[in-house]
């Protein structure tokens, strides 16, 4: 399925496995239901990622994070925003691997997804065919600044920018 990151199209190095048998797949993306089993057979050079449904709690996932290189969160529909909060919680826990949104998202959600901690968007063919990559890159930059502190690149939010402006004004006055 087509994959995007903040720079545009990205090749997918991950291979999906239906069951727990990950054999000699170097980067195996396994369903949540078989994660424990797959981790049991993990070879030293192998990396494992998991595709989670968006209705599991962060607490259920947390114990596995140190052994994962990718967490893909399913978006069953684009209007189902649970994945945004899950990604936030996963990043807050210090997870440094890839977080992927997997489902029929729309270009207007790209900036939100990146701000919440996602790195990549994996789209169904039909969604990707309707919404070419330039639309995503364009939509990503719809807003030059946002109102929320703590989401996305620091300094890109209004609260930080107003703080910086106050500091600059204070320096100029001294």
């Amino acid at each position: 399925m087509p994959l995007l990151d903040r720079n545009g199209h990205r090749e997918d190095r991950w291979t999906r496995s239906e069951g727990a048998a990950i054999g000699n797949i170097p980067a195996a993306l396994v369903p949540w239901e078989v994660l424990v089993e797959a981790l049991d057979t993990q070879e030293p050079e192998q990396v494992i990622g998991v595709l989670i449904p968006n209705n599991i709690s962060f607490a259920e996932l947390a114990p596995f994070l140190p052994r994962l290189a990718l967490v893909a969160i399913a978006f069953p529909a684009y209007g189902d925003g649970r994945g945004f909060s899950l990604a936030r919680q996963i990043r807050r826990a210090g997870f440094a691997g890839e977080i992927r949104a997997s489902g029929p998202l729309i270009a207007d959600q790209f900036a939100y997804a990146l701000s919440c901690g996602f790195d990549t968007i994996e789209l169904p063919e039909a969604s990707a065919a309707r919404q070419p990559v330039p639309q995503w890159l364009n939509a990503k930059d719809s807003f030059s600044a946002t109102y929320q502190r703590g989401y996305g690149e620091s300094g890109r939010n209004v609260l930080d920018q107003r703080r910086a402006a106050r500091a600059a004004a204070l320096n100029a006055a001294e």
Partner: protein
Amino acid sequence: MYRYDEFDERFVRERVAQFTDQVARRLDGSLTEDEFKPLRLKNGVYLQLHAYMLRIAVPYGTLNSRQLRQLALIGERYDRGYGHFTTRQNLQFNWPKLRDVPAILGLLADVEMHCIQTSGNCIRNVTADHFAGVAQDEIEDPRPTAELIRQWSSAHPEFSYLPRKFKIAVTGAEADRAVIKAHDIGLRLRRHPDTHETCYEISVGGGLGRTPMIGKVVRDYLPKKDLLAYLEAIMRVYNLEGRRDNKYKARVKILVHEIGAEEFTRRVEAEFALLDGPSINADPEEAARIAAYFAPPRYETLPAVSNTLEAAKAANPAFARWVEVNTAPHKVPGYAALTISLKPIGQAPGDATSEQMRLVADLAERYSFDELRVTHAQNLVLPHVRQRDLFAIWHQLGEAGLASANVGLVTDIISCPGLDYCALATARSIPIAQAIQSRFADEARQREIGPLGIKISGCINACGHHHVGHIGILGLEKRGIESYQITLGGDDTENAAIGEILGPGLAAEEVPDAIERIVSVYLAARSEGESFIDNVRRIGLAPFKAAFQETARAAA
């Protein structure tokens, strides 16, 4: 009032450009209709029965004259010369053409206005006490809080695809004029008894619709500086755990109800404890920057009682009655907060023509420090009027048909647009309101009855807030015929309560009689000075039910 800085200005312009691009992507097939619909709703564009409707945000109900004049212009140029003020302090235009929407958004942006998040499953326009900043019982002005929340909730990366819509209201007074207990989150500014610091009391899970609930207090005293982090905690719990299997069970009130207020609070507090406040909250300097915009205007030093006013009242009883009914005390001596009724007998509640808007704008500019408010009761307020100017204002309002002396009385009816406009409605609302108004048109009789809030919704979604009306009227459709269910005992104040159903549904033409009978029970049973709602509380529903049954029997 708040003025945009360069960021706010650019944000709104970028939102207009984004919406224009979204429309283009819909037209070229990049977006399906299902994908586009939530995007259009988040910009206030509804497809209604006969036409598109555009809902314009009036943050916490505050406007200046320039903004109201611009709304008048839009109404004239792109609608049919009028607009409709809503129970969420917003303004709706009922007849704009879709192709004109970008132009309208541009005109709005010119006066620091927008349609952002006036619909859709996101945090909606924040509402507040319409007497904010002037009420005598106020501890602190709620508008800086509401503005901070407006900014924080705009295009929120995490909370723009919630299970359902989400409404926040703020009050800073003892008396609740913002119906905070019927909101997803209700905030009340209050002083901590020990530290005397101003804090927030936070209620969650109120709401009307098909499952009316009164909000539950989850935090008695939240320090002001922690507001955004606490809101983030509430929203995260809701976003993750709110039901998405059934849109009728998706509001936060259902989550709070199903897991219990205690468990909900525990989850919010657990999430809040994990948050790093300073990396989320607004700096105290930012809060102060916003608050400075709401500093009181330069009031004159005036005597508490205006001799000019007293003389005019003595000479003109009709004026005196209007002053008594439509003005509220102001915290500054010699001033009054004036409510302009948009409920003249026989008109659609909350409607104002472009000419009327211009007149009110002129009056606000001349007599009220250029400020006015929209109330959730669908009226307008001139918040800072010198008492001695009231007579001149009354004259000018009278010429425009806006001097009805009925604020808070039986004809000051709250009503949704109903089946005359709305695609969701199951029955008409406006004609019912008009019929009741005609029945009680006599002003002396209205004053004799005293404060009485009738609220009408044309469907179970309860936009007319019927559950919290002293008398609530809900229009339903039964086997192709409109049927009106009457509730009694609702309350939209700090004593918030959900009304109870009196009996079987009535036909439209029977409703005024039923109201008449209910009122008669009250008039016969009330003690000296006892208001309608106090009387209902004291004597209970039984006598009203009995009288109501007679109406139902008489009709059968």
